[in-house]
């Protein structure tokens, strides 16, 4: 049953658009695409946070770099995604290399603070780029184009593109986790000192992991910018890093589907609160729907205090107990 679950998910995801009625299709396809994109971003963070044990509070820097590089290229007339998206990935990889090289020399809270600081630096630098919108952001006329007779402007086409990117990311993570490199990273998370003491160059492995995660985050950023046809510095704000961390923990850190489940759960929860009115709640607090963050915060707090292994962790436990 467990082994079939991923395939069931894939089939469902592929079939989903066909099941949607025409008038709702646009909204739900767009919403689902957004989930896929955040799932990719959260999965990239899951690699370094969940599997690698590195508490990076600056992951938004990589997602944001990807978003901005692809947006700047689009706004300058480079419409092809074949140029724009690899460029975004390259840029965020470089950023991860630079930030990681310095940050990974530190540990514990210092590491958290330095990653946060670097993300803030990127935020402020981008915020001051008046040429590309500054704090008002940058609007893009069109989404990036892939040619091949496919128009990414169509929500259906973009849905499949985002799904493909997520699937590729998840499969890549799966192979990585079971590879030699994945073993080392998980060993480092378990006991960094001993990993070094049996002969692994720990710093180099952590840095490589950081760069890979940065690259994947950058791709998510590029997709995000194209999806909304808009980018603004908020994508680089440290609260975005916090949101990604929330998704990872909610879904299950160190578990393959943690990022996906977390993104779906968080975005689903927000959508649920905003668009589906619960009458008895409205009786207590009339405009509760505008205060969705409170519910989200409460859920996160509960998860951290009572179910730190996240949703995927709870599912795994259930499966283990019943077998």
């Amino acid at each position, binding site marked *: 049953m467990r082994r079939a679950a991923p395939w069931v998910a894939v089939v469902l995801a592929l079939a989903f658009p066909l099941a949607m009625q025409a008038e709702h299709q646009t909204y739900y396809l767009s919403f689902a695409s957004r989930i896929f994109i955040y799932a990719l971003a959260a999965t990239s963070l899951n690699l370094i*946070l969940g599997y690698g044990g590195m*508490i990076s*509070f600056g992951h938004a820097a990589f997602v944001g770099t990807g978003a901005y590089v692809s947006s700047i290229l689009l706004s300058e007339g480079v419409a092809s995604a074949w140029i724009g998206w690899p460029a975004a990935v390259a840029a965020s990889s470089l950023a991860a290399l630079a930030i990681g090289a*310095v940050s990974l020399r*530190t540990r*514990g*809270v*210092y590491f*958290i*603070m*330095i990653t*946060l*600081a*670097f993300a*803030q*630096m990127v935020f*402020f*630098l981008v*915020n*001051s*780029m*008046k*040429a590309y919108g500054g704090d008002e952001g940058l609007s893009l006329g069109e989404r990036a184009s892939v040619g091949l007779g496919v128009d990414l402007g169509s929500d259906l086409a973009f849905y499949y593109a985002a799904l493909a990117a997520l699937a590729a990311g998840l499969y890549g993570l799966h192979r990585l986790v079971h590879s030699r490199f994945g073993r080392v990273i998980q060993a480092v998370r378990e006991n960094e000192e001993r990993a070094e003491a049996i002969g692994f160059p720990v710093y180099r492995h952590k840095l490589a992991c950081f760069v890979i995660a940065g690259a994947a985050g950058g791709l998510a950023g590029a997709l995000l910018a194209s999806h909304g046809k808009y980018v603004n510095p908020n994508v680089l704000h*440290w*609260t975005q890093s*916090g949101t990604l*961390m*929330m998704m990872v*923990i909610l879904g299950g850190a160190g578990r393959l589907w943690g990022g996906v489940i977390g993104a779906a759960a968080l975005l689903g929860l927000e959508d649920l609160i905003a668009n589906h009115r619960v009458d008895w709640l409205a009786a207590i*607090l009339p405009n509760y729907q505008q*205060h969705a*963050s*409170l519910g*989200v*915060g*409460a859920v*996160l*707090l509960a998860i*951290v*205090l009572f179910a*730190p292994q996240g949703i995927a962790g709870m599912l795994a436990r259930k499966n283990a107990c019943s077998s």
Partner: protein
Amino acid sequence: MSWILIVEQSLNGLQFGLMLFLLAAGLTLVFGIMDMINLAHGSLYMLGAFLAATLVQATGSFAAGVLLAIPATALLGMLLEMSVLRPLYARDHLSQVLATFALILILNEAVRIIWGPDMPLSVPAELSGPVQLFPGMVYPAYRLLIIGVGAAVAGALYLLVARTRIGMLVRAGASNREMALAMGVDIRRLFTLLFGVGAGLCAVAGALLGPLFAVQVGMGENILILAFVVIVIGGIGSIRGALVGSLLVGIVDTIGRAFLPILFGIFFQPRVASAAGPAIASVLVYLLMVVILYIKPQGLFPARG
């Protein structure tokens, strides 16, 4: 570029630094003794400001409102500590970061529900005018008050920590928690009290800075990051480090923002200067932190031996 401007900006930096110290002191002790990362510290600053704004309106007096807000916030802080934060002491840093991040979300929305997105709080009329420091130099009376209060609180805190028994227990706890526990210190009660004091300090800063920076939801986040930068620079667990770090950050940030664009304007073309100047100024404190951590990875005055 006149020296009056330099003096004025230096005083502004001093003022901001002293207020930062009020936040950083509480934060560094929490971290130093209980090894707890508390992101919700900024929310206490926000609560202090909102409570002060409400109480000032209710009592009609700025002083009364601010003074009453301090114990009120302290009480809320202690309640928060006893209920939500205590289970987190035993947990790992990631759990603490996420749980307190969740608290920020909850408290921001709670404040929005109770008070709305912002509250008016203005400089009291008696202090809204300038004071002449010496011929040719005037400075806002209110900002002088802030400097005075900040310095007084810093002095009182120093006396408390360095000269009293409670202070000694606190310092012992900051440098070696297991030892303090072994000596029979009831660390939990001491800690709740300490947290309350920290919350009270946040309230002072929030109430005093409210008229200058606006009392609004989310005001805690930006200053929280700076407070963390301060304690990382100063050394975790060290009050002295928090003071030096706060003054350093306050002055560098204020003077940087004031003069860097001008400096850039002298050396670079106007287009470059107007973009790069403010950009670099806003990241100056982060660069400062990175440099200091490179030279002294544990901060300037690490409390742990």
